[in-house]
């Protein structure tokens, strides 16, 4: 046996695709360096086999074996207005097939407070390269190898962005030859700056793979509120890696609402790098049919007195499938850490499935950590209680499942998003067999 890495046909197909991609796209030298580094990372990691740590509960075989075309960023799209939240009409970044479309983006309200660019500064390239070289998620490596642009959004020190920024990711989709889209973003939030961001994923038809990576650098004392709304059609894959580095006394609060598809994978890697940093990750999914949502989370407490909260809830019906694989790592020296992690699954059918692996790895001694996971059905006593007040069994069940999911939806700070989710995500609970 030789020592050289022998790729399986799946990896070879992506390497060939990459050659084509490089030929067709004239990239800057900075971007080329990123592509190169990412590609060698990809070759080293390879697609997940059955015992892959990051994809234990996620079957990616079919995805890896799919023949993709690289996206066509100049595709014509229409009717994006309905996907722009009220309040974000003049603060929205529109990505078509993974690439920022300047003509569709409306930035009037944030022009003066936010700087939006491609990779221009050397320091940004360095940040990106560091991120790329340390990437352990093979799909994120693909994003880094296939992104035809990096969008850098910068909020300067003490910048207060008055309106929420919406980043809309629209895919045109292609049912005969699925496309792979690789949006790549870098958010830089300066000292004591405040920003709120809503990311939304939609598709005009099935047949695409949105494979996104975003880096967040949150400087001292800054505050970020991030909301992610995944609402792709069923036949679209959505892989999304959010990597966050948080400095002293800064806050990063996020909520993810996933409506599921053939395969949705949310990966959060958070580093609490300096004292007093705080992260909140909330998530909710409502799954029907064969929809899947998988969450993979690693939170690193690297400094004392940092706080991390995670609360994820899934409502799973039919043959839906979800998993939660989350580990909080409390480094030596990260004293007075406060960390908790809670996963609640509500199972509505016999054929649905949920895997949970909450985990704490603690190398400091003075810490306050808690974690737990529940898998349950509708509480019969609650159901009976509501019925004794005259509510029908069907209505009472709906009320209970809805309220289960609603508690996470209500943590979302944008009423427009909450309103929308009530009519989309939570509406999915109004079915005859719930």
């Amino acid at each position, binding site marked *: 046996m030789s020592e050289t890495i022998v790729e399986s046909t799946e990896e070879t197909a992506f390497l060939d695709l990459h050659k084509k991609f490089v030929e067709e796209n004239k990239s800057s030298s900075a971007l080329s360096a990123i592509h190169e580094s990412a590609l060698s990372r990809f070759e080293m990691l390879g697609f997940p086999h059955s015992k892959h740590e990051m994809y234990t509960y996620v079957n990616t075989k079919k995805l890896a074996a799919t023949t993709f075309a690289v996206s066509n960023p100049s595709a014509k799209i229409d009717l994006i207005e309905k996907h722009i939240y009220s309040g974000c009409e003049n603060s929205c970044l529109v990505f078509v097939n993974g690439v920022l479309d300047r003509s569709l983006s409306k930035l009037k309200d944030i022009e003066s407070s936010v700087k939006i660019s491609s990779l221009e500064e050397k320091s940004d390239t360095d940040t990106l390269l560091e991120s790329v070289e340390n990437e352990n998620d093979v799909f994120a490596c693909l994003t880094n190898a296939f992104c035809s642009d990096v969008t850098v959004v910068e909020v300067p020190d003490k910048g207060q962005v008055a309106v929420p920024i919406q980043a809309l990711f629209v895919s045109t989709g292609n049912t005969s030859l699925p496309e792979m889209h690789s949006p790549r973003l870098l958010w830089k939030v300066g000292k004591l700056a405040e920003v709120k961001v809503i990311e939304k994923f939609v598709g005009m038809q099935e047949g695409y793979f949105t494979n996104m990576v975003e880096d967040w650098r949150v400087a001292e004392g800054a505050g970020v509120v991030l909301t992610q709304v995944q609402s792709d059609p069923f036949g679209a894959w959505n892989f999304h890696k959010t990597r966050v580095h948080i400095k002293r006394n800064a806050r990063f609060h996020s909520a993810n609402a996933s409506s599921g598809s053939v395969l949705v994978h949310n990966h959060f890697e958070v580093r609490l790098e300096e004292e007093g940093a705080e992260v909140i990750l909330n998530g909710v999914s409502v799954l029907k049919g064969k929809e899947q949502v998988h969450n993979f989370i690693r939170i690193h407490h690297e400094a004392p007195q940092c706080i991390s909260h995670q609360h994820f809830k899934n409502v799973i019906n039919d043959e839906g499938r979800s998993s939660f694989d989350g580990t909080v790592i409390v480094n030596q020296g990260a004293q007075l850490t406060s960390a908790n992690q809670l996963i609640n699954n509500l199972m509505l059918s016999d054929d649905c499935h949920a895997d949970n692996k909450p985990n704490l790895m603690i190398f400091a001694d003075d810490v306050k950590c808690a974690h737990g996971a529940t898998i349950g059905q509708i509480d019969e006593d*609650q159901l009976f*209680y509501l019925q004794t007040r*005259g509510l029908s069994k069907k*209505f009472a069940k709906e009320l209970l499942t809805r309220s289960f999911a*609603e*508690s996470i939806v209500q943590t979302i700070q944008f009423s427009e998003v909450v309103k929308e989710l009530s009519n989309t995500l939570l509406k999915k609970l109004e079915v005859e067999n719930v």
Partner: protein
Amino acid sequence: MLEIKDLHAGVDGTEIVKGISLSVNKGEVHAIMGPNGSGKSTLAKILSGHPAYEATSGEIIFDGKNLLEMDAEERSLAGVFMGFQYPVEVPGVNNAEFLRMAHNARRVKAGEEEVDPLDFDELLSEKMKMLGMEKKYKERNLNDGFSGGEKKKNEILQMAILEPKLSLLDETDSGLDIDALRIVSEGVNKLRSENNALILITHYQRLLDYIKPDFVHVLSQGKIVKSGDKALAIELESQGYDWVTTAD
């Protein structure tokens, strides 16, 4: 109004109620007393239609209808109300909204129009005031984190909103402090009329000083072993249950 005839009932094949007959007419107040584990709450659960409890023989007729054939929600809509000994907590369901939904379910059943949130809020405020409940209980989730006494008050609030024909209050007095007991009892008395009836399950004579029963029954080992008037409750309080349960 309510006719229970030789009712046998239990759970998982164990008989707990062992032949109870009881007749309740409009306007009456009945008190059921008896030692722990004698089957009082089981009788209440059977009456309210709990799916885990099964009547093995006997009949329950309410307003001419066979209650045992009705679902819990049908019984409620027909006018039966159960104030639970241990009300269930329902996190995530807002108390005021829940009360409005329950109120409207009853109205729809009666062929009336649903009440909108604003009008309902007025009704709710009035009833809460009657029971000495602070406004904050509107915003709270249904019984979620309520203290024992708060849960009992909330049960009576539901009774006030639903205006049932027959109410069964299972140890509503336990958990209430002296002032709350007085206020809640006065509230219950206000809800009484010659068209509705009340069954109180209690261990204490104290409650019966506020809400005067027409009949007092002693339940022991799944049977009514003695019935009488209010004087029976006074006797029980001073002498304990032994003299009735062993005399049987």
